[in-house]
């Protein structure tokens, strides 16, 4: 155990930090905002491509995919530097983090060239077709069918919660290719271009407001998809679904940790100097959340240290649950500490970075609402607790 990194890791930090200082977008030119999670303004596309070209987009990747084969602690300082500056690598996070990553890991050379690299270089926007109306927490229950017909799949069914689909060029869709196989066998991953006939995208607004439209329902009506768009093996989609995040899986906690730090920082800067900053009831809750943020960072670091030693860490199971619940709590505390001032949705906390993507999520009330995305999607907090109990503590299913 030690507090500080070795000098090689710190040198890596300095190199990246210097690169950022030189290459960050000029705020004067970076004025256009994205309007969905698959919409990337030109200035951001250029920045992402530059990161790719200089090997700073996904440091863990080899150079041909925009990286430099970085180690775990190098990745950590990389994210620390991004977080410190509020830099967003990509406004199409599912494209970069899941769709692109899946194709890099499981796709063939042609798919990598035609899809993965364009997605990573922000030339192509991607969406992820996973959830269905009756397969939310129970993903293995998905029913979108893909029947084989000669050299094509014929896809029918519906996806939902497909972020940014209306702005996306392609969807990586998980579909059932063997209806007779047990639940999580018989699933395959298909690349479906969104302009293929039979694909209908219906964006809908989320709870934060009628004009905040990122989610889509996506309907597939006998959509014919060429067989070459199959990613990985037929009926091997479950493995892709679980393996998509392999490259940066060890870093997933960073998102929760940095999000929490940012919210806390903004809340504390609002609190400072007000009467509430001397209210023991508020301080009691602030102290809890500061400790939450610190423990999240520590447990994330411990996970990395274990992986570095070749061990299989269990920390991951609690990090998402802790992070998402703490984020919701900070926002709620801010709403409560503001009192009736929180009724006024014109009040926008925090400073705005050039990468700030969405004013809808930054009033404290909307951040509270947005917090539920964390406790619901990607496995609800209830399911996280089941997983901890069963997989970590060994309780019977």
């Amino acid at each position: 155990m030690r507090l500080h990194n070795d000098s090689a890791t710190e040198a890596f930090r300095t190199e990246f930090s210097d690169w950022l200082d030189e290459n960050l977008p000029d705020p004067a030119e970076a004025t256009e905002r994205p309007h969905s999670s698959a919409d990337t303004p030109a200035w951001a596309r250029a920045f992402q491509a530059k990161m790719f070209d200089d090997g700073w987009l996904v440091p863990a990747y080899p150079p041909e995919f925009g990286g430099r084969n970085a180690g775990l602690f190098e990745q950590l300082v990389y994210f620390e530097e991004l977080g410190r500056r509020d830099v967003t690598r990509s406004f199409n996070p599912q494209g970069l983090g899941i769709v692109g990553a899946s194709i890099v890991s499981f796709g063939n050379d042609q798919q990598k060239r035609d899809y993965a690299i364009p997605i990573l270089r922000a030339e192509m926007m991607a969406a992820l077709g996973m959830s269905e109306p009756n397969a939310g927490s129970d993903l293995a229950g998905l029913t979108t069918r893909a029947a084989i017909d000669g050299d094509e799949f014929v896809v029918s069914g519906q996806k939902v919660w497909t972020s940014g689909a209306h702005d996306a060029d392609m969807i990586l869709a998980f579909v059932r290719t063997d209806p007779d196989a047990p639940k999580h066998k018989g699933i395959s991953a298909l690349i479906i271009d969104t302009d293929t006939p039979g694909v209908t995208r219906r964006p809908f607004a989320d709870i934060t407001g009628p004009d905040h439209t990122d989610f889509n329902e996506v309907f597939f009506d006998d959509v014919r998809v060429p067989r070459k768009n199959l990613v990985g093996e037929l009926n091997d989609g479950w493995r892709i679904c679980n393996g998509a995040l392999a490259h940066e899986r060890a870093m997933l906690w960073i998102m929760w940790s940095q999000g929490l730090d940012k919210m806390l920082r903004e809340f504390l800067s609002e609190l400072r100097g007000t009467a509430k900053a001397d209210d023991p009831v508020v301080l009691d809750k602030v102290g809890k959340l500061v400790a939450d943020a610190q423990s999240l960072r520590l447990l994330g670091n411990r996970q990395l240290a274990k992986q570095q030693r070749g061990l299989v860490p269990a920390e991951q199971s609690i990090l998402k649950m802790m992070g998402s619940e703490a984020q919701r709590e900070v926002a709620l505390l801010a709403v409560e500490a503001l009192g009736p001032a929180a009724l006024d949705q014109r009040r926008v906390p925090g400073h705005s970075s050039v990468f700030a993507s969405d004013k809808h999520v930054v009033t404290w009330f909307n951040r509270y609402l947005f917090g539920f995305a964390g406790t619901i999607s990607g496995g609800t907090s209830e399911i996280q607790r089941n997983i901890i109990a069963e997989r970590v503590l060994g309780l019977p299913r």
Partner: protein
Amino acid sequence: MDFELTDDQLELQRTVRDVLAQECPPDLVRAVTEGGAADELWDTLVSLDWPGLTIATEHGGTGYSWVELAIVLEEFGRAVAPGPFLATVTQFASAVRAVATPHQASHWLPLVASGAVTGAFAVDEGAGTWLLDGVSAAATCDGEDLVLAGTKRYVLDGATADEIAVVVRLDAQLRVVVVPRSALGVDAFAPIDATSVHADLDLDGCRVPVDRLLGEGDATEAISAAIDEALVAISVSTVGTCQRILELDVEYAKERRQFDVPIGSFQAVKHKLADMYRDVERARALSYFAALCLAEGDSRAAVAASMAKAAAGECQQRCTQDGLQIFGGIGYTWEHDLHLYLRRAKVGELTFGGASQHRQRVARLTLAGGLA
């Protein structure tokens, strides 16, 4: 005590519920939330004489007790009814009734009872509480006029009410003066709940005739009593809203299937709903107790009002949070009605002091005076 509604009261409850089911469906609330108006609903309420429910018959009201008002308010909360009812009846009229001289009351209360005037009540100046020691808005006499100065904040319906009962200091006394909204500078919020819009009011330079100054002498106690009424009204309305969230969740938990069973068969969901049910029942009991204390002029009204507001606050916290969590993604959409209830419940918590402040008030009053 007899702590259950009488047959007449149950009948009133059914009537109100039926009227609101007809006149105030979720679609109306959604329309208002997306920018529409609800004028017809208010016209209906006026035609039913509900604005004057607790106003004495001699002032043109129906003369019912605060318990009947609580029944109506719970149903209003359950339907997330928009419009001027809450501010006019439970804030403006309460302030007037508590503070005004008989002569003034006989002017203002019939206007409320007939629906001719809508009102608001302006107390807070930024602390976000019900506490009167923060009042620094001032009135000074200038011949036959009063001249006002200062700012009022977070006034419910402050941007729309006809008349506003404003708490001010005059010669070191706390007083209430009724000011036409049109005479004030108004800054309305972009609200989290478009069915209950708050506003800040700029009093500076506002000039009104001196007969709009209510009552005689310091009105601190009367204002406190009026605020207690406002607290109970928010509480019982929140109970209705939470009751509806609970119903929606129970219904969904019975229908929605995951892992091949209804999600309501999972213990995690059951226990959340059981706790929501308990919190709703607890807040309802404390709210009706407070209403009963108001109805009978019981000395426990102040502590009861804060217990009700605290319990309603705890209840909304659980019902909004777990209520949304149980719905999962579906509840996270704008299209689903759940957020209409969630927003209203949260507005109640954020006005006139939150649960923690009222719990502390309950504790202080109890330590000073023994258990309620």
